């Protein structure tokens, strides 16, 4: 029934989508790995970033790919400030409070967008939105291929930052042993905020890569963040390679189950996989035992 002529493009498209999922998940897993909390505001931040990319294009005429140069540092600063001046002080170092504060931020951001822009769905039309590359056996959309490449550049950059810079070493030290890091003079509040900023910058870049081929509305981030949660749980909370592989796997699963089961049931498949992984192996495929 399913010939390779249908199956192979579906798998390739799944991989392309999965790469952007992986980038959203990367931000989430980074924050979890260091702060040990699930950032429930991640989806709302993605919605905000999509709106920012939208208005950068509509108002300033800025191409989404160029907007990365502006939005990535901007959202890094926003995330840094959020953790340093709101989440950190407000939660008094209690994990349960941190969860609630990120949930509260999600509620505020999402509903502020809803209040300001209503529930309308918007799109932008860049001239290259429908251009394709001919691979001989299949065509792939140019923006999605660019997105795929960009995700791996971002992952490489993150790997370099984590491995070779002082702040990267400090982040890894805090993730491993917070008290010890504090004792040798690392400013933990600063490291937390930098990590949150990096996670938020990942979301901003993902938004810029998504927007040429995707739509936006105040709730759009939720669809991604639940997939991102699944990827993070599947790949292991806090594991960067886990997020990348998990993202690609989920992208392919979604594409294939959409092909076989239809759209609405494909969504349930992801949720059930998510619950099953959480119940059977909460540490994920790559993670250490929780």
């Amino acid at each position, binding site marked *: 029934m399913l010939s390779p002529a249908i199956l192979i493009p579906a798998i390739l498209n799944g991989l392309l989508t999965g790469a952007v999922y992986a980038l959203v998940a990367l931000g989430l897993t980074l924050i*979890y790995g260091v702060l*040990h*909390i*699930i950032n*429930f505001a991640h989806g709302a931040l993605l919605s905000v970033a999509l709106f920012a990319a939208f208005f950068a294009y509509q108002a300033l005429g800025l191409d989404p790919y160029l907007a990365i140069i502006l939005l990535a540092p901007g959202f890094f600063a926003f995330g840094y400030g959020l953790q340093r001046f*709101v989440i950190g*002080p*407000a*939660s*008094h170092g*209690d*994990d*349960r*409070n941190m*969860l*609630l*504060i990120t*949930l*509260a*931020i*999600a*509620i*505020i951001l*999402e*509903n*502020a*967008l*809803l*209040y300001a822009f*209503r*529930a309308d769905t918007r799109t932008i039309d860049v001239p290259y939105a429908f251009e394709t590359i001919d691979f001989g056996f299949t065509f792939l959309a140019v923006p999605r291929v660019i997105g795929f490449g960009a995700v791996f550049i971002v992952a490489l950059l993150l790997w370099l930052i984590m491995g070779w810079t002082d702040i990267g070493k400090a982040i890894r030290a805090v993730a491993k042993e917070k008290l010890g890091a504090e004792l040798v003079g690392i400013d933990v509040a600063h490291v937390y905020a930098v990590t949150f900023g990096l996670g938020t910058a990942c979301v901003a870049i993902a938004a810029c890569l998504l927007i040429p081929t995707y739509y936006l509305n*105040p709730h759009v981030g939720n669809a991604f963040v*639940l997939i991102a*949660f699944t990827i993070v*749980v599947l790949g292991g909370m806090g594991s960067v390679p886990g997020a990348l592989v998990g993202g690609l796997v989920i992208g392919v699963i979604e594409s294939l189950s959409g092909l076989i089961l239809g759209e*609405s*049931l494909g*969504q*349930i498949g992801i*949720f*059930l996989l*998510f*619950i099953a992984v*959480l*119940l*059977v192996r*909460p540490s994920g495929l790559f993670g250490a035992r*929780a």
Partner: protein
Amino acid sequence: MKSVLPIVSVIAALAVVPLFVQSNVTLNFLVVTLLIALAGQGWNILGGYGGQYSFGHAAYFGTGAYVTAILQVRYGVNAWIGFAAGIAVGAAVGAIIGGLTFRSGLRGSYFALVTLAFAEVLRIVASVAPITGAGVGTLIKLDLRAQALQFQSRAAFYWLILALVALSLLIAWLLERSRFGAWLIAVRENEDAAMALGVDATVVKLGAMVLSAAITAAAGCFYAQYFLFIDAGIAYGTWISIEALLTPIIGGVGTVFGPLLGALVVKSLGEGAKLVAGDAPGLDLVVYGIVLVLVIWFAPRGLIGTVADARKWVLHRSSRSVREAGHG
């Protein structure tokens, strides 16, 4: 809280309100506030006393609402029986979700995440399954008779939800004084230590989950009877998961009156925001989110906890000054 007297006097004071207030708008506001207080008390049993923060109490609210509605509409079951069945099935869903998650040892972030996912799965299933009316929703036929659990006057609905809230306050009060409640609080404070002392943490948490789900499901059953319409977005929507956790946290987490006080504060602020800025979608939730941040930041034990702290501080100071005066 030692005596049951505060509960009796608060409920008595609330019970006479319809004798003085005839405005349907005001009564409607109070009914919705009490409904949220009831759902919040359910969350408070598990989250406040047990320390297990659920982000998906919509799972029980929605189940209660759907069971009540579907039994009447599709099977012609009496509304009162449907109401009781809704509570029972809600508790059973709590037992299933609790059994799965607690046995897997999920805590903290993981627990919040998996409860959220269960509520979302139920929402998606309810929005496509034919028995729930799928996207159209379920409409309960208007039948204004007490046998059908529908009343001509708002006051009757008000007394019904007030009775349910009174019952939930009593349950929380009894929980505080029971051995089971002590185990539950021990698990919240330090699960490993409680287990080392012989408390079966999984069973205790599961018991709290079932009780919690039953109370929140009762709020869902009432919602179905009061509004006579539900769909997947209402019954299993994130709004109720958020409001159920918002009210006890703002009022005073792990206290008998926390959810009731929190519901009054939250709903009043929501109405106030509408008065100031007009009724626009999203506005009330922005206000709730800001209040949640401010309360956790500046009054992490909620309004009741903060008042109690302040009183202790004042008493401590005055007793010290008395002692100092004695020595002087």
